């Protein structure tokens, strides 16, 4: 029986038991810390063989070769260059130890470098490095592969592609999750599962970083979606500091006691990582003996993933909007940018569409005179780390699609595969290789079908080809084929019929390119919106559209409620809570009460957009500018200060109110009589020499100006001599000094000493992150903990 059958047969009946730690066990058995484990094992074959044998005796069905770091990069750090040979030798040692009794997994760990787009190791270089290791392990006779402790989904993909392009062995991939349930690069277990199982991993899971208790939730998160067995290899508890040494000290019995919880969570393959020993594995095997695991789910699900998020698609789920704006057609600036190899606009468009409600982002960079393959790679690499929504790869170029699918660190959707011969013969296998979903476009080389009857026939034909290529129906989304109603008036009905048939009869997902319907018509948004509502009623699952169109998004949200896709209208309510369509200007001038109240509230709430209009209204009803300042604005800003003191307000609110005050005051200035000027005296501000942090000082300046002081702000990194010169020139009654660093804080004393030497006795107020009241006292200055206190001290000194 080959390894794959053997593994699946075990998993069908019971939990498959892996080995425990190799690295920490080698250290326990004499390997010096910091040694190259691979080299040490080759020099001490007896030890590594005894470890393998001990795990076998303890009940392991599979042992890992000691090749975790046996890739060219890691071995190179120890001066070893022949990775293939080392892998072969270590695999042979494992075989010598356990014979044919149990299976041997060729262990592939991370290179220690991040793979593009997350790092500087080129994807193809990473694939080559792993292939070298895979070949060595195959030379040594491994039965299967384990790609483990991966913190970067892209590196896991590179390793998995390396295995799949080299052989057809059973391959498990386990990621390592930080506290918070994401890998170091931000991938969650469900997204990793979607990406890896569709790329061809035969089992997926997690190892290291946490003890058993912490790992169970990851298995629970993956189980409902996993078509493959789930793997867990936790550490022997969380590391603890004992006598200034970090230890993993969970006893075997305690470790094994989590076995049942793992079983309940849905694990199929279980072992141990750092700190676990043969005794842990023995105890685990004993606890799980005779226990039947929950099998992986049989039915496929439609799911896409990015490195940070996954999206489950389904009939009856809320309509998914595919943002269509990354498309250079008709956008000259965008075209120019892409030709120059820049990706700024693509990134901006992706983020804007995400923010507007798109759950998927269509990427189309095709245009004349461009190397589309190279450009799509650049754009995918720019988007992948920063855009959470999974991508839809939209191109007429098969090469460009292949590049995009190979480099994208998630599961993407191809837009689209039609019945055209080249698409079936060339593109379909490419999409299958990378585990992509695809949009099925029901047309052929010879025909653009006008009727739903013909479309259905073509869909059936393409589905047959897809099945033969290895696709499941859940991997496919049918394009309803939207035609322009101005040219063919009956086409909307044909599209709706196609959608209805796909949804109700075939249980297939459907999509339309929405805007095609209204070409040539005026007021297109209403045609688009009406068509969308009709299509949703017919069962539409996805729409390619511009999510920045508020009417369209409103129709989507409302349609989801009416078709019971948004069952408790929760998404509808949250959407409109966050996106009330009141414009900024309307909001700014929204009436809250009388003109008096509006002025007060505008300051209190930091309404910088609305303060001017509120003041104008107050003046229009006869209010005096002086009274507006003294009876409304100043009391309002004082209340803001009090709220800030009570922590009811935090910094952004304090500053927003101060900015509204400043704006209002400047607006009223021409109306204020000279003798009622708000100038309460001059204050000089500076961030001292050596310090270039000045945001705190800028806040103080704003507050002081609002309190009616004339503020001279000398800026940052100001030499003491310059400050003295300014004191002589402006004659301030207060000098405010700011510093963020302990090293620059000492320059405050120099300024004060020099001022005293020059006979310039002034009140100094000091502040900044590291400045304390005690330090201020020691240099003869007053201390202000924040901008509000600085203004209060200034007011006090003035009076």
């Amino acid at each position: 029986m080959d390894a794959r059958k053997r593994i699946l047969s075990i998993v069908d009946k019971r939990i498959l038991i892996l080995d425990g730690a190799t690295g920490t066990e080698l250290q326990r058995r004499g390997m010096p810390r910091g040694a190259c484990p691979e080299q040490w094992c080759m020099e001490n074959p007896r030890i590594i063989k005894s470890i393998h044998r001990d795990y076998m005796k303890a009940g392991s069905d599979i042992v890992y070769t000691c090749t975790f770091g046996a890739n060219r990069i890691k071995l190179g750090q120890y001066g070893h260059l022949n990775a293939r040979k080392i892998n072969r030798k270590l695999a042979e040692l494992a075989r010598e130890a356990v014979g044919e009794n149990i299976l041997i997994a060729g262990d592939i760990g991370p290179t220690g470098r991040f793979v593009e787009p997350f790092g500087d190791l080129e994807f193809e270089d990473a694939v080559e490095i792993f292939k070298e290791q895979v070949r060595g392990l195959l030379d040594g006779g491994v039965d299967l592969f384990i790609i483990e402790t991966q913190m970067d989904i892209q590196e896991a993909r590179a390793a998995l592609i390396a295995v799949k392009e080299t052989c057809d062995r059973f391959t498990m991939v386990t990621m390592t999750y930080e506290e918070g349930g994401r890998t170091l690069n931000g991938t969650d277990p469900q997204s990793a599962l979607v990406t890896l199982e569709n790329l061809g991993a035969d089992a997926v899971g997690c190892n290291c970083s946490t003890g058993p208790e912490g790992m169970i939730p990851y298995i629970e998160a993956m189980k409902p979606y996993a078509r493959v067995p789930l793997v867990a290899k936790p550490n022997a508890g969380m590391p603890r500091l004992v006598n200034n040494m970090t230890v993993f000290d969970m006893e075997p019995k305690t470790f094994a006691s989590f076995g049942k919880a793992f079983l309940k969570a849905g694990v199929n393959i279980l072992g141990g990582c750092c700190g676990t020993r043969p005794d842990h594995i023995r105890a685990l095997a004993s606890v799980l003996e005779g226990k039947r695991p929950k099998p992986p789910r049989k039915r496929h699900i439609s799911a896409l993933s990015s490195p940070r998020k996954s999206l489950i698609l389904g009939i009856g789920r809320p309509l998914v909007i595919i943002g269509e704006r990354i498309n250079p057609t008709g956008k000259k600036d965008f075209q120019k940018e892409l030709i120059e190899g820049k990706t700024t606009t693509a990134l901006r468009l992706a983020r804007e569409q995400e923010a507007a409600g798109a759950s998927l982002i269509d990427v189309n960079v095709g245009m004349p005179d461009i190397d589309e393959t190279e450009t799509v790679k650049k754009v995918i690499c720019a988007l992948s780390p920063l855009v959470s929504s999974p991508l839809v790869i939209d191109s007429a170029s098969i090469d460009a699609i292949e590049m995009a699918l190979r480099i994208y660190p998630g599961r993407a959707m191809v837009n689209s595969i039609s019945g055209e011969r080249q698409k079936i013969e060339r593109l379909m296998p490419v999409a299958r290789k990378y585990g992509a979903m695809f949009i099925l476009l029901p047309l052929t080389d010879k025909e653009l079908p006008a009727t739903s009857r013909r479309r259905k026939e073509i869909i059936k034909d393409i589905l047959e080809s897809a099945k033969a290529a290895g696709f499941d129906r859940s991997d496919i989304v049918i394009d309803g084929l939207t035609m322009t109603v101005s040219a063919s008036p009956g086409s909307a009905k044909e599209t709706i019929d196609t959608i209805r048939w796909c949804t109700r009869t075939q249980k297939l997902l459907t999509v339309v390119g929405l805007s095609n319907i209204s070409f040539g018509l005026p007021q297109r948004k209403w045609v688009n919106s009406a068509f969308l509502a009709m299509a949703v009623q017919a069962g539409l699952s996805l729409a390619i559209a511009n999510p920045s169109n508020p009417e369209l998004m409103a129709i989507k949200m409302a349609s989801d409620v009416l078709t019971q896709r948004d069952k408790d209208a929760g998404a509808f309510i949250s959407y409109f809570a966050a996106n009330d369509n009141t414009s900024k200007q309307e909001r700014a001038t929204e009436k809250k009460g009388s003109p008096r109240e509006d002025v007060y509230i505008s300051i209190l709430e930091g309404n910088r957009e609305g303060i001017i209009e509120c003041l104008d209204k107050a003046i229009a009803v006869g209010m005096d500018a002086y009274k507006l300042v003294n009876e409304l604005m100043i009391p309002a800003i004082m209340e803001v200060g009090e709220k800030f003191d009570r922590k009811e307000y935090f910094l952004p609110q304090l500053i927003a109110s101060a900015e509204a005050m400043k704006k209002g005051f400047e607006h009223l200035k021409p109306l204020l009589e000279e003798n009622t000027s708000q100038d309460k005296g001059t204050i000089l501000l500076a961030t001292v020499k050596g310090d270039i942090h000045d945001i705190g000082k800028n806040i103080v300046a704003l507050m002081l100006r609002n309190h009616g002081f004339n503020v001279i702000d000398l800026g940052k990194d100001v030499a003491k001599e310059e400050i003295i010169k300014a004191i002589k020139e402006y004659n301030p009654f207060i000098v405010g000094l700011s510093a963020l660093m302990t090293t620059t804080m000492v320059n405050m004393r120099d300024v004060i000493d020099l001022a005293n030497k020059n006979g310039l006795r002034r009140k100094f107020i000091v502040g900044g992150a590291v400045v304390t009241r005690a330090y201020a006292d020691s240099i003869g200055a007053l201390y202000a903990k924040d901008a509000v206190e600085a203004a209060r001290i200034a007011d006090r000194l003035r009076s």
Partner: protein
Amino acid sequence: MENSRYFYNIVITPPRDLIYARLGYRRGKTKIDHRQRQEIENTIEQALSIIELKGAAKRIQIEKNTGRKVILADGTDFDSNQLASMLGDSDEVLLMAATSGSRIMQAIRDDTNAGNLTRAVILDAVASEMTDKALDWISSFYRQELIRQGFGLTSRRYSAGYGDLDLKYQKAIYDSLGLNKLDVDITEAYILVPEKSVTAIAGIMKLA
């Protein structure tokens, strides 16, 4: 002694709680209305779109730890009782650095100059927290690697300019890590530019 490793694209989950806390938000006390919340969130999103988190790190053997002074194998020495004490059980240190890049600093300056201080303060807070979090990211990366070699990382890390470790040592860390490769500069007063850049030292300890 290994060469510096550079991380050109550090991807982290934005620490929103810490960003709000840095701005003075106190759970259960501070009240934000919908309009204010939306404005703050939008500004945080804008900050995140222009922050370019990069980092560098390097392991170096400790040549000598006198309890008052730590001397590294590359000749760098640090006069600091507190650092020496933190490294008491370490044979090696991990030097590390992270930066949010220059675009966010330019945006902060632009907003400050345009009088949009509310935005500037939020951008500043996001950049500060993201930069600190990038150091956590580098620590986690090394922790994962070290564990298999029988080592762990001290839970605390120390930075020049704190406690009794003079800021002047930032220059030694800067040079050792080659931070110019990340487009980070250092002033005569030992301040890193772009300002949202940090360096730190952690100890590497044996696992029992």
